[in-house]
């Protein structure tokens, strides 16, 4: 290992970044480019080996990483079609959007595999001068004689890594943020479990079934497919695989006593999904936690000698219409790197010296989006949105388009009233929810 040893008070590295996911690699990249010495510690055998995601990377944040990144990023497909599907066990209503613009540079979203994407990001940091150390767990924080964070202890022999600043990008379970006292006890209610099947199909079959050409891809988000457990489903096309999965509120999953893979099986068997996946073979099954608490559930992000970024800081945006995370991780990592560079230049790596990190995040999309959408997780996971509206909408559309000759058609209001009544929703509740949604998303 590079640069072990050193005594408290005599830093070896300017920064040690824990976790070579998108946040950690972005932080290491920004620091290395600023000429700072940085070691990037990854517990897996290669970057991305511990990571799972829901499927789309929104790449514009990469403009700061490398110009014309789309020419070299390990993309599976560019998402040109995005569908939101509300469903019951036998029905579905989709809002389907397709754009030619999303299929051209600089693109909007891409599907990728984390083993490739995270390795690509880490390689950028290494090219810039960061030292990547894989297969190494940062087990504890090191503190100097004054009790200030001064590095990390790893599970390597003589594996102390002393540094002016530690960047905790150690993911949703962040043991370092907990050890530093920055995160209160992990709340199950602020987390969802994502389980995913990667299903293999020939590329031309994927193209035909989803109406795609070349490297075009589709992203389908689903609501109402989780047996009333707050959450949702997703389907993304990769080059020659399809990612299918569900995201489930942890306390509700526990209470329901349903096994997670049963819910993916529901989805795979759904009449609106099964035809897409016929004869597919399972390439890999995976699971990962997602921090979904949003702005109000985030930990303290800055303390003396340490910053927190990415999922460790709870930065996944799970706001219903918007489901993003990798871009927020990269944005926060870059900001962390910049803040540390400034703090070292000013000779102050205390919380005060590092405070520009939070201000930077508030001034750009990372915390601005989270702040704007801070009430969204509560609404999206609420009982009516999860358990009543998907069925209500399906019955409403069925009521509108089922031809009942010789009985004359009913008016839209009557169809709506009857669908609402069937699902136990009052029209004034619908109006109240619409107002609430307008306030949150407007």
């Amino acid at each position, binding site marked *: 290992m590079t640069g072990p040893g050193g005594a408290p008070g005599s830093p070896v590295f300017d920064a040690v970044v824990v976790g070579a996911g998108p946040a950690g690699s972005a932080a290491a990249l920004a620091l290395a480019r600023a000429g700072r010495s940085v070691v990037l510690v990854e517990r897996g*055998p290669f970057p991305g080996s511990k990571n799972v995601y829901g499927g789309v990377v929104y790449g514009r944040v990469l403009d700061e990483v490398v110009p014309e990144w789309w020419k070299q990023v390990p993309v599976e497909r560019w998402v040109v079609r995005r569908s939101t599907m509300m469903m019951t066990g036998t029905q579905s209503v989709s809002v389907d959007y397709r754009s030619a613009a999303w299929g051209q540079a600089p693109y909007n979203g891409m599907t990728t595999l984390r083993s490739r994407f995270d390795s690509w990001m880490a390689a950028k940091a290494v090219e810039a001068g960061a030292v990547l150390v894989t297969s190494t767990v940062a087990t504890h924080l090191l503190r100097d004689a004054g009790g200030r964070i001064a590095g990390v202890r790893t599970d390597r022999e003589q594996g102390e890594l002393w540094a002016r600043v530690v960047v905790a990008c150690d993911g949703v379970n962040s043991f370092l943020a907990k050890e530093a006292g920055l995160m209160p006890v992990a709340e199950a209610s602020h987390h969802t479990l994502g389980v995913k099947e990667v299903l293999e199909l020939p590329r031309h079959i994927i193209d035909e079934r989803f109406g795609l050409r070349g490297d075009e891809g589709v992203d389908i988000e689903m609501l109402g497919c989780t047996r009333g457990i707050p959450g949702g489903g997703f389907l993304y096309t990769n080059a020659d695989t399809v990612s299918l999965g569900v995201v489930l509120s*942890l306390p509700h999953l526990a209470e329901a006593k349903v*096994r997670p*893979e049963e819910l993916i099986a529901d989805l795979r068997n759904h009449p609106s999904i099964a035809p897409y996946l016929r004869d597919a073979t*399972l390439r*890999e*099954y995976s699971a990962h936690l997602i921090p979904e608490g949003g702005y109000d559930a985030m930990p303290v992000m800055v303390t003396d000698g340490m910053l927190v970024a990415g999922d460790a800081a709870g930065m996944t945006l799970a706001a219903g219409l918007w489901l993003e995370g990798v871009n927020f991780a990269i944005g926060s990592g870059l900001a962390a790197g910049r803040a540390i560079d400034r703090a070292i230049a000013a000779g102050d790596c205390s919380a005060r010296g590092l405070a520009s990190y939070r201000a930077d995040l508030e001034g750009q999309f990372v915390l601005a989006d989270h702040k704007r959408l801070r009430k969204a997780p509560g609404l999206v996971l609420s009982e009516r949105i999860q358990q009543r509206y998907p069925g209500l909408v399906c019955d409403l559309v069925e009521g509108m388009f089922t031809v009942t000759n010789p009985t004359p058609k009913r008016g839209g209001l009557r169809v709506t009233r009857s669908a609402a009544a069937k699902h136990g929703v009052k029209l004034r509740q619908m109006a109240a929810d619409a107002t609430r949604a307008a306030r949150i998303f407007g």
Partner: protein
Amino acid sequence: MSPPTGALGGANPVPGGPWRGISFEDRMATVEFRVGARAHIVVDSDVCRSCTTQVCVTACPANLFAPTSDGGILFNYEECFECGTCYMVCNHEGAIAWTYPDGGQGVVFHHG
């Protein structure tokens, strides 16, 4: 609905009708695990015996927790996704001690 086809209805179809999926064993066989000698999760079965819900048994996506006949919990660490679901849903203080496996060991996702 069509009869089971392809690997999803393959070698060991589970009960529950066509296309319910593959057996759990076959499902987990798609995942690479580099199993270390040290158990990175330790379960205190004495605490589990006083737990009436034992929600870890169904919630764990890798199905690693099994109730024992004496009311305790038997745990296998080898095929763990390292997700953290078990300790977060556990409502009994001290029942589950959770750390990461040693560096380079544990789950290795290739399509995450």
